[in-house]
């Protein structure tokens, strides 16, 4: 493949978006096929580029002018994240009906997100990620301007923070290219910026983040695309940070803090999920829950943790395609999706979470405590999932954007992929991990049958495959759950929710006391400043003169 082919995964969705826009402007209805084809073409291009060589490929097209060069790089991490973004995007773009404007913006967003993970340097990632965020917000607002969407300010702040991190790297080390930044340049402040960017970009907070709020939208077309394209990008930054730091974060405490944060995110999600009043509300918490676990695993700083996190993100990708296609009614599709999402053994999510928790113990020191907390959180998630099966459906989205069979197939894929965990690790996660943690290459073994870590071996194929068969037989005999949707009280009230609500109301209703309003009068201030009064001007001059001669 010529190096220029590295542009293909980015260019194909962009071209598809361009064609859709041109046809739309010409008054034709481009339909979903064009943008879908663009995304699938990008998936194909990614496979064709990576699988034959399985080594890093680079393309440098020169300086862009703002400190970054158009430097593309396809390595294991880029391949993995590219797939996590492209596959759900392709599924959703192919199946869900969209206006040409929505299709165009969505396709452009996909291209931008892929560029963010294919970028060779921090600044290009920031530009592309920022573009993807902008387009996602626009896409969501085009669909329904009154429905919840990610706070634009937080997304902008995230990518500006990353830009600043890139700028610091350039100033300190002369480069912001991932592969060239010296280890010493990744200082604690730079990493903090990068981590803040990552957390804000993916909304990884213990409270209800944007990825959960999106699920309360009437339609899930744009929400699915936003989650598919934006959510993995924050994790991508945390993974790339390992490459910048030669396989580790600048201080171990930073990884521990992030891992604890991931645990808190997952716990927050689980607590909210068990109190969900509808199944839609519960499903909204599924992906953030995975995000919390993935953050916990990735931040541990061990190869096992990283690959576990990557597999969780792969599951996120599949769920991002599955959940928007799921109809808001009870049935086997919902049950299967919930089972896949919660990490029912022996699914892919189960294997990944077990690996993630294992990693906490194997990381040593006190990190095992995170694992204990993680296991407890997982149990709450399971409670929430079991409860959600019998909840009322919640707000129904249009039938023409749901595809229960495809959703069921995707959920089933997550479940049956459990035995294939070693294969997924070998093809998908370990190359990515090896690319960013060069010293830790080969620390995971087991081939295509089991996953061997330092302490244990997870016999994924030989244990999970018969278990899967047993499960199928068992449910074949007993039948699946036929729960009638009915309102159910939360398993336990959300701790501090009332106090938090009170505080929020107090903050919202805060106002300057009546007697001081004449002092803090924005209108009067504006009139004073913008009234063109010479006295103020002379005072300004005097102030400048004083300040300079002080």
């Amino acid at each position, binding site marked *: 493949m010529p190096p220029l082919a590295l542009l293909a995964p980015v260019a194909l969705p962009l071209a598809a978006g361009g064609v859709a826009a041109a046809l739309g402007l010409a008054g034709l209805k481009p339909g979903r096929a064009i943008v879908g084809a663009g995304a699938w073409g990008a998936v194909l291009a990614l496979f064709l580029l990576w699988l034959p060589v399985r080594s890093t490929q680079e393309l440098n097209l020169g300086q862009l002018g703002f400190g970054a060069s158009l430097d593309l790089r396809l390595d294991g991490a880029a391949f993995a994240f590219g797939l996590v973004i492209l596959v759900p995007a392709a599924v959703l773009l192919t199946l869900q009906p969209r206006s040409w404007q929505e299709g165009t913006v969505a396709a452009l967003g996909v291209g931008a997100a892929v560029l963010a993970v294919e970028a060779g340097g921090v600044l290009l990632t920031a530009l592309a990620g920022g573009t993807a965020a902008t387009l996602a917000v626009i896409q969501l607002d085009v669909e329904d301007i009154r429905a919840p969407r990610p706070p634009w300010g937080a997304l902008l702040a995230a990518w500006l923070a990353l830009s600043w991190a890139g700028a610091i790297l350039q100033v300190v080390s002369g480069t912001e290219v991932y592969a060239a930044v010296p280890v010493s340049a990744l200082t604690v402040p730079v990493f903090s910026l990068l981590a803040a960017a990552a957390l804000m970009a993916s909304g990884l907070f213990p409270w209800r983040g944007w990825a959960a709020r999106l699920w309360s939208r009437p339609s899930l077309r744009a929400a699915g695309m936003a989650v598919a394209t934006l959510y993995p990008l924050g994790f991508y930054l945390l993974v790339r940070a390992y490459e910048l730091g030669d396989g580790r974060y600048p201080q171990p405490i930073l990884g521990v803090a992030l891992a604890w944060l991931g645990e808190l995110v997952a716990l927050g999600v689980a607590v909210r999920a068990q109190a969900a009043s509808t199944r839609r509300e519960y499903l909204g918490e599924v992906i953030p829950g995975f995000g919390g676990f993935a953050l916990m695993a990735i931040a541990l700083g061990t190869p096992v943790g990283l690959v576990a996190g990557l597999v969780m993100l792969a599951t996120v990708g599949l769920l991002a395609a599955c959940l928007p296609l799921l109809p808001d009614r009870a049935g086997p599709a919902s049950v299967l999706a919930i089972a896949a999402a919660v990490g*029912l*053994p*022996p699914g892919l999510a189960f294997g990944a*979470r*077990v690996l993630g*928790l*294992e990693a906490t*113990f*194997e990381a*040593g*020191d*006190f990190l*095992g*405590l995170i*694992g*204990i907390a993680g*296991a*407890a959180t*997982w*149990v*709450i998630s*399971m*409670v929430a*999932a*079991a*409860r959600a*099966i*019998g909840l009322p459906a919640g707000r129904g989205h249009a039938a023409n954007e749901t595809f229960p069979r495809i959703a069921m197939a995707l959920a089933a894929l997550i479940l049956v992929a459990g035995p294939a965990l070693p294969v997924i690790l070998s093809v998908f996660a370990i190359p990515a991990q090896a690319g960013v943690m060069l010293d830790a290459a080969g620390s995971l073994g087991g081939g295509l*049958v*089991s996953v061997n870590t330092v*302490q*244990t*071996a*997870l*016999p994924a*194929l*030989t*244990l999970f*495959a*018969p*278990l899967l*068969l*047993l*499960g199928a037989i*068992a*449910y074949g*005999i*007993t*039948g*699946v*759950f036929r*729960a009638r949707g*009915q309102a*159910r009280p939360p*398993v*336990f*009230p959300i701790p501090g929710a009332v106090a938090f609500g009170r505080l929020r109301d107090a903050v919202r209703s805060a106002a300057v006391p009546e007697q001081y309003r004449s002092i803090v009068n924005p209108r009067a201030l504006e009139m004073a400043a913008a009234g063109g009064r010479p006295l103020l001007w002379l005072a300004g001059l005097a102030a400048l003169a004083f300040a300079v001669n002080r």
Partner: protein
Amino acid sequence: MTQILSALATHSLALVVYPGLLTIVVFGFATEIAWTRVIQGRWVLPGRERPSPVVATVAFFTILVAVQLAAPFNPVPSAERNVIVAASVLGFAVWAELALTQEFMPAPGLMLIIQFCWLLAVLGPAVQPESLRPQVLGNVLVPSLLPVKVASGFLYLLCVPALMRLWPLTPPGERRSRARFDTARALCWLPYCGLFTTLFFPPSADDGLGVLRFFAITLAVAALWIFAGALMLRRGAEVARGLYRRAVAPYAVLVLVVVVITTFLMR
């Protein structure tokens, strides 16, 4: 390929026969019958109706837990057993049943706290050794680690009666009467008792004596819980609730502190 097929066969055997489904059913049904005999004063035998999806789910979870036990002659190699799988899946089994059946859940908040305490009892001893093999944890006899192990074992013993609903957390009037045979609970007896044996006693040898030793300890644990359960039933729900709120939860915090201190001292 032969190795894979052979491994598939042995793992299937473990899941279905020993220490999996068949063993769980035999051990669990016997123990459950004994338990109902003790508390109800009459023999209650399992019904012949087709198992519900809830029972299927619990069975599905518990067989996965059972194959993680350090039972002698377990066909699953010791390196492939994992305490995380055992702990989390056994946790699912309890809660899946409670949440799926949409029954009145007795004091769910307190139950969750007890669940967390139990998880601490299972996983706490794994923090310092950094090992997740159940038999390795059972075999830990390093003096400096013994306090954690003993404390965790005691916590485990305290938590399981509530998780298996042997101890009442709500007054009898609020609970549904349980005259029938509780199949789901029956399926949990071996995983809970066996896991205790695995984690807190040195592993038994792969011989007849070893089998006897393993099941003797496991049965003894079951008997202890049956005895304690019967005792507590007489004292009433208020005492049980008070015990968990005022004693077990603070004790779990103490166990956590011991785990942290031990880890700190042995760094």
